[in-house]
């Protein structure tokens, strides 16, 4: 029997479960509205390492270790690690996998990496290719600034549409088969997004670059599954930021989708408070990953949320394409998550 539904969606009939999750963030994130919910805060931006890049990968490594120990397991129990990050050649994920010694598939979806890895992880678990696997990602303000923007000490002003790269990491352990039976949060569907580009060239306006992809993936998921906003408690987007979220609402309305705005939760809008002066909000792989591990997944496990559509969004640009004047392609991958009552 085919598990495909419609053009872009697959159903996961065996309902792979979320066994455990862990989040680690930096100081600034810990001072935001969800600051108390993260598992661990790193002391400073160096995280006890000798470079920002080493600090970032140590955070990813620690998030995976913490996630595994929260599940009461050993690293050797994990059959697969699906991870990626923003840095060139996804060095954070590759180097973390070197220390963790878990069989590793590296993924790149820019800031959509966490929902990309959950989609693929869900399919692998549902297909019986893995019983226990970890999906993880991370980002660091200082590494992203130097790769994509300017040196830290350069005296420039950020534009009003700019977003603040989150220093943070999130790891989610998924289980298939018998191990999934005890999980209170399960994956039910995954929708693979198309890469969309509506001509935004301003690298300081990621929200506008990614909003069309988010709109397209939400519409595709609804069309493929016959569901709508009414069927979900929340539709969680990754890091559209304030402008991107406004644009998404506008684009969905143009498509004829009614949007109850209170059901649209953007991690980038929520992670920082307005007084933290991040302009359009948070961004980076670690934004969506740390927020779902700190807030969305716990709420699902507790049954405060029953059904959530989670789509992290990614801007697939590089400094080279920006310099060459190319516009910015965006992508969004969605997973549907549900609360499962004990014994059901």
């Amino acid at each position, binding site marked *: 029997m085919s598990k495909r539904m419609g053009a872009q969606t697959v159903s996961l009939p065996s309902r792979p479960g979320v066994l455990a999750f862990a989040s680690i963030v930096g100081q600034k994130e810990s001072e935001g509205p969800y600051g108390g919910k993260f598992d661990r805060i790193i002391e400073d931006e160096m995280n006890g390492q*000798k*470079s920002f890049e080493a600090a970032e990968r140590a955070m990813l490594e620690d998030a995976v270790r913490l996630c595994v120990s929260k599940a009461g397991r050993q690293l050797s129990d994990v059959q697969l690690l699906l991870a990626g990050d923003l840095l060139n050649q996804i060095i954070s994920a590759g180097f973390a996998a070197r220390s963790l010694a878990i069989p590793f598939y590296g993924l790149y979806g820019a800031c959509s990496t966490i929902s990309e890895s959950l989609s693929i992880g869900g399919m692998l678990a549902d297909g019986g290719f893995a019983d226990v696997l970890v999906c993880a990602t991370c980002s660091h303000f200082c590494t992203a600034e*130097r790769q994509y923007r*300017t*040196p*830290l*000490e*350069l*005296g*420039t*002003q*950020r*534009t*009003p*549409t700019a977003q603040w790269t989150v220093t943070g990491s999130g790891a989610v352990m998924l289980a298939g088969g018998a191990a999934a039976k005890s999980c209170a949060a399960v994956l039910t569907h995954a929708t693979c997004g198309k890469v969309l580009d*509506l*001509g*935004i060239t301003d690298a300081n*306006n990621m929200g*506008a670059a990614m909003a*069309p992809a988010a709109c397209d993936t939400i519409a595709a998921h609804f069309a493929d599954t016959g569901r709508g906003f009414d069927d979900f408690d929340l539709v969680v987007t990754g890091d559209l930021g*304030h*402008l991107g979220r*406004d*644009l998404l609402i*506008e*684009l969905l309305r143009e498509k004829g989708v009614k949007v109850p705005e209170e059901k649209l939760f953007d991690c980038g809008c929520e992670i920082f408070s307005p007084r933290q002066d991040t*302009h*359009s909000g948070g961004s980076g792989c670690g934004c969506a990953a740390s927020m779902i591990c700190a807030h969305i997944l716990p709420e699902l496990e507790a049954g405060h949320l029953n059904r959530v559509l989670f789509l992290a969004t990614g801007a697939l640009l590089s400094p080279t394409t920006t310099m060459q004047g190319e516009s910015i392609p965006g992508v969004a991958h969605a997973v549907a998550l549900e609360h499962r009552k004990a014994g059901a």
Partner: protein
Amino acid sequence: METKSHNRAQQIERYAGLVARLAPKSDMAKGVVRAFLVGGLICTLGQGITDFFAYKMEFGTQAASTATSICLIFLSALLTGLGVYDRIGKFAGAGSIVPITGFANSVVAPAMEFRREGLVMGVGAKLFTLAGPVLVYGIGSSVIVGLIAFFMEVM
């Protein structure tokens, strides 16, 4: 094919309009006033240093001007190193970019940033990532000016 690319151009144009409508705007008046004040203050400080060298040290005009540049560049390097200059820049924008201190900041910031990539290809090479273009265009155009001046004199 023709209509498809036409549609796409239309779509892009419409979306750009939507983004422009919803995007938050920079506060032009506030930004310009801040740039004016900070830029003006840096230049006034420069005038003070120039007067010191011209009157107290009895330097010539050219030498006093060069000494002023060196002093301002030193101050900018120090403030950049201490992590103060980027905060001034956040406040002042072009007010701390346009003066020679901004040029110094654009040399020091990448040099510090790439210290961990080594002293030669890190500091040595990256020192010029932002300031290099300034020297290329400044020196390049001064050579052109010199050549024009030479040929005008000959003719």
